[in-house]
């Protein structure tokens, strides 16, 4: 009995440890391995810096080699499935180190992707007309809104493979409804003319 309970606990602990998203980087890096970050490939993290637009960079270009959980700007790396949009916004500083021009565009809104916020309002995502995505804004009063950058850099550009692939194509534009047939228009007009003539004759005769 005790044995089986222990075994189950052990198995559960192993699974939990393996699938914990916030697995501490320092667990491997600092005490045992002491990596200096001079690598381009980290198969355990599924990162390959020999291909892609960031090819040629080393881990230590962005990560602190002593503690890879830290970036060189001092921010702590949060796994993408745990990070909120506010956390991801912090990493923009790092991108700006090498891409100052794009960052300047981003700040003034010339890089696109801006959205608006209002006091006490929210925006929720819906799949709407023709299955196209749309953010539905709900504000108590649609006044005094502020345009802000919509998404952080790493939301669209994977930092280890930053080329943005094209998104899917939405369905075809809809046609205007077809006009009525020419023959139908002709028949209707003729009928109306005859009716008008008959009515006027009738009115004349009755007088």
């Amino acid at each position: 009995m005790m044995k089986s309970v222990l075994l189950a606990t052990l198995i559960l602990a192993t699974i939990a440890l393996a699938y914990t998203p916030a697995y501490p980087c320092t667990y491997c890096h600092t005490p045992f391995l002491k990596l200096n970050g001079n690598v381009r490939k980290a198969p355990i993290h599924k990162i390959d810096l020999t291909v892609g637009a960031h090819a040629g960079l080393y881990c230590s270009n962005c990560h602190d080699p002593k503690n890879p959980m830290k970036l060189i700007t001092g921010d702590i790396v949060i796994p993408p499935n745990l990070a909120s949009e506010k956390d991801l916004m912090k990493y923009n500083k790092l991108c700006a180190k090498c891409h100052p021009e794009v960052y300047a565009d981003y700040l003034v809104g010339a890089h696109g992707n801006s959205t608006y916020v209002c006091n006490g309002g929210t925006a929720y995502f819906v799949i709407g007309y023709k299955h196209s995505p749309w953010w539905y804004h709900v504000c108590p009063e649609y006044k005094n809104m502020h345009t802000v950058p919509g998404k952080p850099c790493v939301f669209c550009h994977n930092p280890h493979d930053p080329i943005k692939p094209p998104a899917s194509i939405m369905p075809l534009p809809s046609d205007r409804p077809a006009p009525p047939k020419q023959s139908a228009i002709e028949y209707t007009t003729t009928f109306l003319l005859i009716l008008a003539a008959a009515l006027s004759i009738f009115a004349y005769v009755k007088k």
Partner: protein
Amino acid sequence: MVEKGGKIRRNLLKGIAVTGIAGMMVLDRNKVKDMLKPITKEDLEDGYIYTINGVEYVISAESPYKTPEELQRLAKEKEADAKRRCMESAKEICKRLGENSPECKLAKKHCQEIKVKWTLARKGVRWAMALDLNRCIGCRRCAYACVQENNIDRTQGIEWIKVLNISREELELIATDLKYTDAPYKERVYIPLACNQCEYPPCTMVCPVRATWKEADGIIVIDSYRCIGCRYCITACPYGARHLNWKPVIVDALTLNPNMHVLGNVPREVHTVEKCIFCIQRTRDGGTTACVEICPVGARAFGNLHDPEGPIMRIIEEYGAFVLKPNAGTKPRFFYYFGPARTPPKDAVNPKSSNWIGNPPRPEEGAPGPNVLPGGEESFNEEKKSDKGM
């Protein structure tokens, strides 16, 4: 003897003289002088300035609604009308799905949320948009987001934004493909086209009832209460940006956008023209347009043209821009440009590289040192030398 006609004439002259003297005594001299001043073009462009809460707003001189009070009254009228039409739709939904269904409650709640604003144009603002054709992938998300934001009738096939697919080499608008099913391709360029918000709009000049006019911040608006549906403006527009509602506009209470502007996305009447209004209900209150927000590649930028630190001036200074049909003389304020980076198309040789056109694959793993140029350093130097020799 005085003839009868002569007497009448004399009395008339007497009357005029008396009125003139009375007028001279009653009226202020300066007021009369002001009245007789001819209206110059500058006066017309300035419009009427009103200060509300310390902010200067302008009502265009072309507008038939000269005071904020008139616009406010119109907004109230339209709000009542929109709510009535929304409630009709909500009742229909309740009849179909039952009074206690969540859809029925939601529809009724949506109808109460409707707010028709009448925000005026701010002084010194000229809205403009810029679009990066290198980044646009022609996915049509903007066209469909626009339909939802602006309460366009879904059954009539009206979409304010059309995405033109044309050849990258020729850039010929006549050879446009609207019904493509796969994009983006290397040889094509995708041009989303809506109202260009021209500086000299030909559509407003032809309107016989002053139902459409250019606002002080450059947005060309239509008042659906004044529009008679004569369609002169549709033929005058060089960009095909205007659309006519052929049948009564269906207001669906469940998918209605409650954020409305009196000259913008308030549900239109039957047989009226409608067009892109730069999401006037969002932008005049500090927001951004729906197409800018939804664009998955960030191709669009929206801002104040007169703002030297704004996105539009930055793009024009940094990357340069062009407009569609410049020879039409309309001075559009919708700028297109070919930006520095391009979204990799589907038929790219190496889509995962930053320079994707015909780039050879990167060196294999384990290659020593930093990345080497595709051609190698030596050949690069040779080219330089040959240049000098020339």
